[in-house]
């Protein structure tokens, strides 16, 4: 119940801001953050909760974007249907990939997910007739109406993305706090004990992987809406890296850690791009400061600094 209240209040705050002051850059930021927050939080279901380090999570983000954009461009399906379809396709793909990968132990799991992602990326680039190759899907996504939101309007896009993000995060929180989530954390902490208790390890991991993939796909749908298309960069492994960094920067042990990390990365990107062309230099120094200074994500650090006060 507490989560729903927090979510409701956050949503009200976020939706109220444009009523007080319109700032297109801030709205763009929230739209992009919605996509990335879902992406990073879904990854943390694997990394932080289950102890499965996936280097290839970006493939589901990209798949969600492409599935959605292709459906919108090639068919006349309405937006919610196209979005749902994209998430289902991604979930199914995650199921298939997971079936191959989850039996491997940690390090190798990381490598094989990376290899599958690189293969997936390579297919996107080669299958030019379907995906547009390295140029991505061009021509834009028809900005249709959904539940009264006119997505051609930035305000409506902002509201839609904020609501989707909050709902998605709430769902992920529910999963993470549920007995299933407890099972995952038990597996993370001591998989032998978990299996002695009768838990089928690979099945739990496969569920986690599939759910994580599905939510990443949802993030991809929002990303596709923002750029009005789909680009291979969304499915490339540096993008997987972005999600990992968001999780690390924000806090691997806090549910909202990835969201905060994503916000930090996006904000840094926006601010630094305006000031200097040497973004890598500045970003690198900031990351080192976080990594060496705090040694853990921001929210994890704050929790340790003020124990008991922060959930």
């Amino acid at each position: 119940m507490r989560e729903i209240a927090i979510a409701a209040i956050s949503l009200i705050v976020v939706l109220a801001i444009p009523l007080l002051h319109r700032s297109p850059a801030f709205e763009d930021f929230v739209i992009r953050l919605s996509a990335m927050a879902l992406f990073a939080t879904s990854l943390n279901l694997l990394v932080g909760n289950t102890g499965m380090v996936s280097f290839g999570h970006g493939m589901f983000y990209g798949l969600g974007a492409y599935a959605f954009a292709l459906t919108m461009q090639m068919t006349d399906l309405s937006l919610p249907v196209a979005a749902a379809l994209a998430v289902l396709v991604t979930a199914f793909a995650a199921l298939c990939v997971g079936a191959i990968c989850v039996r491997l132990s940690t390090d190798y799991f990381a490598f094989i997910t990376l290899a599958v992602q690189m293969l997936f990326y390579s297919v996107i680039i080669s299958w030019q007739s379907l995906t547009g190759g390295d140029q991505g899907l061009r021509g834009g996504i028809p900005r249709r109406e959904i539940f009264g939101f006119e997505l051609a309007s930035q305000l409506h896009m902002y509201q839609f993305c904020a609501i989707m993000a909050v709902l998605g995060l709430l769902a992920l929180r529910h999963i993470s706090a549920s007995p299933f989530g407890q099972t995952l954390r038990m597996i993370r902490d001591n998989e032998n004990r978990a299996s002695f208790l009768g838990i089928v390890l690979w099945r739990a991991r496969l569920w986690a992987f599939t759910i994580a993939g599905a939510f990443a796909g949802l993030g991809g749908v929002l990303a596709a809406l923002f750029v009005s298309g789909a680009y291979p960069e969304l499915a490339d492994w540096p993008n997987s890296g972005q999600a990992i960094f968001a999780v690390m920067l924000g806090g691997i042990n806090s549910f909202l850690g990835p969201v905060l990390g994503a916000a930090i990365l996006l904000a840094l990107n926006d601010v630094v791009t305006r000031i200097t062309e040497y973004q890598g230099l500045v970003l690198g120094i900031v990351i080192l400061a976080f990594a060496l200074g705090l040694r853990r994500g921001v929210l994890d650090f704050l929790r340790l600094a003020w124990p008991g006060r922060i959930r």
Partner: protein
Amino acid sequence: MSRFITRRKILAGGAASLLAAPWVARAQANTLRIGMQSILSGPIALLGTSSRNSLMMEQDRINASGGFLGRQIEFVFRDSKGQPQEAARIARELVNTTGCELLVDAEASSASFAVQEVVRDLGIACIHTNSETSSLTADPKIRAPTAFRVARQGVHDAVAGSIYLAAFANDKKLNKWATCSPDYAYGRDTTAQYLQFFKQFKPDVEVITDAWPKLGQPDFTEVITKLIQAKPQALFTLLYAGDLSAFVNQGNIYALFSQMTVATPNVDYPVLAAIKNLPVGIQSATRYLETFPDTPANKEWGQAYLKKWNERPTNWSWQNAVAMKFYEEAIKKANSLDGKALAAALTGMKIKTPFGADGTITMRDDHTTIGYAIGWGQTTTKEPFIVDVKAADWGKILEFETEWKKQQKYI
């Protein structure tokens, strides 16, 4: 602390307001801001930096003669690193937050399509200056009302290049060809275009093998040996910049260039400057050449650029310069900065410029430029580096372009 107002929230609120500062839009000054975005880092950084150099020269020139509509112009440069979603974000930020009233999109192909969608949404005037992919303006579904392209086009180069190479091949009796192009949209589509027209002008040409290295691939060894053993008489390659340099260096130690003639549209000043043992006799197009067109105006501009930046201009440099000239004339004609008004002024406009084949370049109805200087010649080791330059026949180019557009169902 109450249940709902946690320390976490307060911290978040504090951080948010600190970070909000950049997003509050800046007040409008009398300077006319023009947004420019491009690739300013990574392996193809030269694309953005040489565009920026040229635009800085234009800024000085235009401001010296009064600016646009009496306002001094100021460029705002941004690096998208070639990432489409970043390019889209930057385009929106330049217009919505930084208050730019015009856009110069100096992105390479993939990101320019992303910017196109933003321009379609926002209705602001935008000139794409570096994207050579034809579909950006040729495809009616992708063309946008206020977006224009001032840049060479893949299909124009393909026709011009094929005509020259067919004549050259007939002259030297080179019937067996091989191709080696980077394995991505530009490489694949443009090679296909060249071959399509090549076969039309020289039906007895035979492509005996093709190689498709990855863009940025460090090691071309297996590609080079594959080419050598196929024993073609000539090689057509679309490799460029650092890749072309690496390919030439690696090809040299295999004596590739003594075994086949090489043709590429991409030997330009940066490649010439970087490669120390560039083989002579490579058939190349002139991306930018100080001596073609062989006019005082062209030479003067090239020299001025060299003097100011201590490096020679690139193809991207002249394209951006011409874009600003178009903006200058269109703004004078429309007496406005409004997207629609500028679009009306730009359509069909013809300007005088040193980079035109006959001293002029025209902006066509389909929002892309024609009449710019295209030449093919062969390389030498000394100035002017490309000699025996033959100018392309624009009549033929337009004729075959129309046919190609019909084939693609663009018209």
